């Protein structure tokens, strides 16, 4: 049982290891170029932030393009904003980036195909771990039987 528990923990750790990306061209974050702010600008910025927060920065370690200060992330945010301004929906903008970088670009993978495992396996690991703990606690706290 102890081996199984160790393996369960190790699988959980391995599942959490994110694939690192090639980091480069880090630069200061940009600001919106507009000098005056209107309600529609604010709405556009909010929508840009919302979409950019769901897209993984290709040159960072587990950061969204919204949070990353890299040049590429900044340029991708501009693309997001421009596409939204042009009338694309957030889903269309995300689909554009998926068509270029694959599903990898989504910080939260869609629940389709093998991606479902990404959602199911952690739950199974937690449930299995709790069950294991319960079994072990019961065994350790059970009164010892003596045979005489």
């Amino acid at each position, binding site marked *: 049982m102890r081996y199984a528990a160790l393996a369960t923990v190790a699988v959980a750790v*391995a599942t959490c290891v994110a694939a690192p*990306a090639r980091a480069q061209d880090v630069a200061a974050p940009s600001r919106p170029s507009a000098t005056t702010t209107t309600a529609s600008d604010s709405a556009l910025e909010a929508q840009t932030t919302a979409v950019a927060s769901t897209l993984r920065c*290709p*040159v960072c370690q587990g950061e969204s393009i919204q949070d990353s200060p890299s040049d*590429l992330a900044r*340029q991708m945010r501009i693309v997001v904003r421009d596409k939204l301004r042009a009338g694309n929906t957030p889903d269309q903008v995300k689909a554009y980036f998926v068509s270029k970088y*694959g599903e990898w670009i989504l910080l939260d993978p869609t629940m389709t195909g093998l991606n479902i495992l990404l959602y199911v396996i952690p739950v199974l690991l937690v449930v299995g771990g709790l069950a294991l703990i319960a079994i072990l606690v019961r065994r350790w706290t059970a009164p010892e039987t003596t045979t005489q």
Partner: protein
Amino acid sequence: MNWKRASIAVLAAAPLIALFAYGFSRDPAEIPSPLPGHAAPNFTLTVFAPGDGPLMQPLGDTVRLGELVGKVVVVNFWASWCGPCRSEHATLSETARQYAGRPARFIGVLYNDSAASATQWIGEMGGQSYPALLDPGALTAIDYGVYGVPETFIVDATGRIAYKQVGPVSANILHQWIDSLLPNATAAGTVPRTRVP
């Protein structure tokens, strides 16, 4: 030995070993590209370094990928601050020279760099046979799913991306792909690798 316990341990460890085997067998920095097999994104970019010899294109000219249908096009994203770009530069320049006069074009696209630095770099490297283009805002790079340099795309004569290389490209890869994709390639020409779905 408790065989039951040993069996459970082996069964529990098997998925872990498989996971590690999978993880260690792939480059964690590589982002699988969905682009090979699909139409190459069109672009219209301006020449900032004309190249030399027969492949030269005047400074300030625009290059439209859509106008190169019928030719195999090698699109190389690079930058002067990129170390690995140095190691592939001579290969690209020489291979481009070898295909001059055939329906193949080489294009360099500058990635997050200034024209001044890039021009100086080309001079330091002893020149470049094919033209280099500016990509303001990295819009074309993003359109190609570029996430680092160098990255090289080989576009076939119909405008479809046949191959994507992440990292320095070799002469062998260039020759194999271009030869197999040239419009007059014989039936003997075979596609060397299987990145095309």
